[in-house]
């Protein structure tokens, strides 16, 4: 990585999800030099794992496609995948950042032909599908992965599988001697866009995510709709593979709860409303959704979407935070609670339960890798003591895609201001 050119007029963007990509592209299109680092082998982040976005219900491939084209076309951006920030030191306008790049074992000769994937036998949980499916030890993260380059799982290195992959490659793209690289660069501003992770549903004891197979999370449900996902694009019960036509959505699963996440995760109401349309899309009038909620938080423009879903007679709304889930002998989840509108007690049986899981910063639960002001929820505060380190997207708050993009652009503008100041003082 000796070829990385960076000065204190360079902007470092950490995280290649929708916010980081936006920030990097916007800054680069303003003529600034940008280094974009991404921990996983491909950019796109959690947006690439969605089936559709709300409220327009278009596929993320579309929105990402535009960003990828801008990214590919721009010579001011240097993208480093499989790279993490190890340490940051320095001050406003002048930071020394140490980057660590994990070995991919596949060089730029790769054409993504897939022969190595066929040759390798070892299989591992597919991170892209939240472990709902297996992937090979040599794999492409997703069909629209950028860069379109395979990766070798470090766990197959030193096994016969690694040699099989190398033998299968016609382009001399496999480099089994690849190793971790460390490099220190100087940058003028840092945009931190490491995004979010779904709250650990196992912690919500009364909902039995850890015990009941037919209780899943909203992000897993999203993967079910992908034609290349774990169920081939069909809504199926994990317990018996039958079609799940009667689905319950539980709102605030982990959010707005002082036992779990105190904050409102903002996206979950809309995510569930969106997911009710998946049932209609797949099963027509036979697809029944029931949304259990405290209150639906669909604000400003997206309220129209809420009204549309409310008008759908296949969608029932029950104003109640579900108290507990049990299951009957056929592994059907039974939801127990009290409906606040009338105080009736219910025990409702469904085919499948989707927990509208809360959003927590991806850095939660570990020491924050950089020295910045973080609020009680783990999101980065906009604070003068942060110098020229700016948060973008879900590093700053629980945001939907639309707002994450706005936040990315805003952070790019803040970083550009710093770079311009640095440039003018240096003449």
């Amino acid at each position: 990585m000796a070829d990385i050119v960076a000065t204190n007029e360079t902007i470092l963007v950490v995280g290649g999800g929708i916010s980081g990509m936006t920030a990097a592209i916007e800054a680069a299109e303003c003529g600034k030099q940008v280094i974009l680092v991404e921990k996983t082998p491909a950019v796109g982040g959690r947006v690439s794992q969605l089936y559709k976005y709300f409220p327009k219900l278009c596929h993320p491939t579309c929105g990402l496609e535009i960003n990828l084209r801008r990214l590919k076309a721009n010579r001011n951006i240097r993208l480093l995948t499989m790279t993490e920030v190890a340490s940051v030191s320095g001050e406003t306008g002048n930071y020394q950042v140490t980057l660590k790049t994990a070995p991919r074992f596949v060089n730029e000769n790769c054409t993504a032909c897939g022969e190595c994937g066929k040759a390798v036998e070892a299989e591992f949980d597919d991170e892209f599908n939240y472990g709902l499916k297996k992937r090979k030890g040599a794999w492409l993260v997703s069909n629209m992965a950028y860069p379109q380059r395979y990766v070798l799982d470090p766990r197959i290195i030193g096994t016969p599988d690694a040699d099989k992959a190398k033998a299968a490659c016609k382009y001399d793209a496999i480099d089994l001697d690849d190793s971790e690289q460390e490099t220190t660069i100087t940058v003028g501003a840092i945009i931190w866009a490491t995004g979010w992770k779904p709250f650990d549903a196992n912690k919500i004891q009364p909902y039995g995510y850890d015990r009941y197979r037919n209780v899943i999370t909203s992000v897993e449900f999203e993967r079910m709709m992908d034609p290349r996902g774990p169920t081939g694009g069909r809504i199926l019960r994990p317990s018996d593979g039958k079609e799940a036509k009667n689905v319950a959505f539980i709102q605030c699963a982990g959010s707005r709860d002082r036992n779990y996440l105190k904050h409102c995760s903002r996206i979950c109401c809309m995510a569930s409303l969106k997911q009710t349309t998946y049932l209609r899309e797949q099963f027509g009038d036979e697809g029944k959704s029931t949304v259990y909620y405290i209150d639906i938080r669909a604000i400003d423009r997206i309220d129209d979407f809420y009204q549309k879903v409310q008008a759908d007679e296949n969608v029932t709304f029950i104003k109640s935070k579900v108290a507990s889930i049990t299951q009957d002998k056929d592994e059907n989840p039974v939801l127990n609670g009290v409906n606040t509108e009338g105080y009736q007690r219910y025990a409702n049986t469904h085919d499948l339960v989707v927990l509208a899981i809360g959003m927590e910063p991806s850095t939660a639960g570990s020491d924050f890798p950089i020295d910045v002001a973080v609020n009680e929820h783990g999101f980065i505060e906009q604070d003068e003591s942060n110098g020229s380190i700016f948060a973008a997207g879900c590093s700053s708050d629980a945001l939907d895609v639309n707002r994450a993009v706005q936040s990315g652009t805003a952070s790019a503008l803040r970083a550009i201001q710093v770079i311009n100041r640095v440039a003018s003082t240096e003449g």
Partner: protein
Amino acid sequence: MSANVQAIESYRNSFLKEVEANVEEGDWVKMCMQCGVCSGSCPLGPYWEHPPQEIFMLIRAGKREEVLKSSSMWMCTSCYNCIARCPRELPITHIMHGLATYAERLGMAPKNQPTRKFALKFWDNLTKKGRVNELKLGVSLYFMNGFVEGIKTALKAMPLGMNMYKTKRLNPMEYFGGHGVKDTSGLKAILKKAEEIELAKLKKTDA
């Protein structure tokens, strides 16, 4: 009083304020967001006239009589399921007992509610010697609903009692006096002082 002031008065929720002032942990009542998890989680919930969620709403709706005369909060068995699950960490169990205590103090508690009766018997039993006399407490419970039923219950429980006696889990001599703390008059003084403090609190808020 003008019509406007009268209208405002009808909206003034003095009962919520009364609860906040006099009931243990009462100032948490306003924090309830009516999600229903407490009512849904209560193992005895279906048997309550008004489960906690409803009690909180009734308090806020100013339904003083309906709440204080209710048998509901006497149904609480202190299993703490509601506290463990409440997304806003309301000390629901404590509030229920606080409401029951306040209703009792005002003489509004339902006289024949069995939990209330038991609570009073337990308190009398405990405060006599500073130790619970299980034999006396048990026997007094047998006869809680009359002499004939008491005899019947006692006969039914006799084999158990005999077994407990044989394994030295039950001492019949406890019925005559029984054991207690060393300084009974000291205990009484403590309780008297505690009651004074409690009453003083109550008077202050009345004013």
